[in-house]
């Protein structure tokens, strides 16, 4: 029933996404609401989110294929597959964001290795290939030593790519809200948390009903998710309190915009309330955390919270003018400091979510993502 509903919703999302992508490809960026001041919009935020899930999912796959934890034996494939479909959604989102999509090859053949973006593109390319190879081995030759080798190589790569996302923003000294030394450290933690939430959702909603370890897996993942959420909240507090005490005007303005400005609802209701606090309250209760449905849907809520959190990192920093009078210096819809995604942007993002959902469901149906260990743990 749930699967059918998700297939239906995913298919609908794909249809909406198809309209958005066609519009994007035929009219370029004309229908987008981002401009030259708020220069990155929803797609960049979703790229950061999906990329984080991909890196986190890979790390969790290592619990099965590298560390051979008995409790998580048989969950490696689903973690890898979830990670792969997330990476696909991430890369598609960011590719559509380019002004010249057809020139992406230049990053590979004519790139600037000193640019964090260059390093990230290369990193994600290698990461994607490595993940494909790992998934192939996991499906065909799960006992192969090569799989362990790939996981060993992939762990530092996952750390690098998720940290690079933080560095991508962190190196921007002109934006005090982003120019935080801990950004490249925070993002791997965010990635791991979103990977754990993804696995929580996958096992909770689609795990094998005959697996006696399922409730213990959910409880363990719930504890991991809650612990990482606490770390995330601490980072949030550290960032915001330092910004407010430091009193650097650009930084304070960005934090104010997020907490009390046009994005207050996204922060307080979606990110903090529904995305963090509610799942934490539910998941610390063993009875609920071990319940398939509760755990699964809390995983989905945590993922939603992380998606909103990525947007809340990207948008507010850009809505603060670098020169105060810039907002009134030249009137044009593209030169505004307010941003809310357009219908076309929402449609494309809906399509990406639909793509990831349908691809995950198809994988779950066709590839036997969940397996049971032959020897009881």
């Amino acid at each position: 029933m749930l699967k059918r509903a998700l297939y239906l919703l995913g298919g609908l999302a794909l249809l909406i996404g198809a309209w958005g992508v066609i519009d994007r490809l035929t009219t370029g960026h004309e229908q987008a609401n981002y401009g030259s001041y708020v220069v990155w919009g929803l797609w960049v935020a979703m790229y950061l989110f999906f990329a984080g899930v991909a890196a986190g999912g890979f790390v969790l796959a290592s619990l099965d294929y590298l560390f051979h934890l008995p409790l998580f034996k048989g969950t490696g494939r689903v973690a890898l597959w979830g990670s792969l479909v997330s990476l696909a959604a991430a890369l598609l989102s960011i590719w559509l964001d380019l002004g010249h999509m057809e020139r992406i090859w230049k990053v590979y053949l004519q790139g600037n290795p000193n640019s964090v973006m260059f390093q990230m593109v290369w990193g994600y390319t290698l990461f994607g290939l490595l993940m494909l190879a790992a998934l192939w081995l996991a499906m065909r030759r799960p006992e192969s030593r090569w799989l362990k080798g790939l996981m060993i190589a992939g762990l530092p790569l996952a750390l690098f790519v998720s940290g690079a996302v933080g560095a991508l923003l962190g190196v921007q000294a002109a934006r005090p809200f982003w120019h935080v030394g801990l950004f490249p450290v925070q993002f791997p933690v965010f990635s791991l948390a979103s990977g754990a939430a993804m696995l929580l959702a996958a096992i909770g909603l689609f795990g094998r009903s005959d697996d006696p370890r399922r409730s213990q897996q959910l409880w363990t993942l719930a504890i991991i998710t809650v612990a990482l959420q606490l770390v995330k909240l601490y980072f949030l507090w550290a960032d915001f309190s330092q910004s407010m005490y430091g009193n650097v005007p650009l930084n304070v303005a960005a934090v104010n915009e997020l907490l009390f400005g046009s994005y207050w609802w996204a922060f307080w209701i979606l990110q903090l309330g529904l995305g963090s606090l509610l799942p934490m309250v539910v998941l610390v209760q063993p009875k609920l955390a071990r319940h398939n449905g509760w755990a699964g849907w809390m995983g989905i809520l945590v993922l939603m919270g992380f998606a909103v959190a990525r947007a809340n990192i990207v948008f507010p920093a850009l809505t603060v003018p670098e020169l105060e009078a810039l907002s009134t210096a030249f009137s044009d819809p593209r030169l505004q400091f307010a941003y809310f995604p357009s219908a076309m942007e929402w449609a494309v993002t809906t399509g990406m979510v639909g793509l990831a959902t349908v691809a995950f469901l198809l994988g779950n149906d066709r590839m036997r993502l969940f397996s049971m260990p032959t020897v009881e743990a």
Partner: protein
Amino acid sequence: MLELREQTDVLVRMRSDLLRALEQPVERRRWVMVIDLRKCVGCSACTIGCIAENKLPPGVVYRPVLEEELGTYPNVTRRFLPRPCMQCDEPPCVPVCPVNATYKDENGVVVIDYNQCIGCRYCIPACPYSARTFDFGDTYVESTAEAAGLIVGRDLADDHERAASFEYGVQWPRTRREASPIGNVRKCHFCLHRLNAGMLPACTTTCIGRATYFGDANDPESLVAELIGRPNVMRLKEELGTQPRVYYLM
């Protein structure tokens, strides 16, 4: 001699400074711009001149004029601050480019290779002066009627709008949506195409108050060398260490 110099329009002097600089090897020139904020009246003629010269589409602006009101009544004043690209000697926008599409050319001007730029826009937030804008492909005549009987309908206006600009000495017609500079980041380049033809930047020649000066700072005889040696000179956000080549006289 001094009297004669003072009577000469600064544009004439700057033009002769420019021609003298062009005789020098390119690596010896140091193009700088000086803007006298006491003379700027906020007419935005420089903004419009720049838009006309570079045929900038909607949303792309190289030189907005920032307007501020200072003080409290009755001690109130207004200040106008034209903001071209600072052509920083340590530009934060350059190292972030993943494909080396933006760089300092031999003149020391930060340029963009339109055919190399992938349109990722990473350089835009890197600029502390918001001096870069993205070309979304928008047109001014987007919703202009094509109905017969109008003196200038969409067709005619559209032709004019899609005419080529001559930035970097190359023709850039806006005839195809997928062709550069649509989809690229764009910025002020001190009108390099004009400089190479012996002409001052468009913003300098259109300034009605003669508040914008341009020339080679390495030439001790030039007007700009004289101006940037004054004590009332400042540069924007100097604390960032970007070493802007645009100076303001206070």
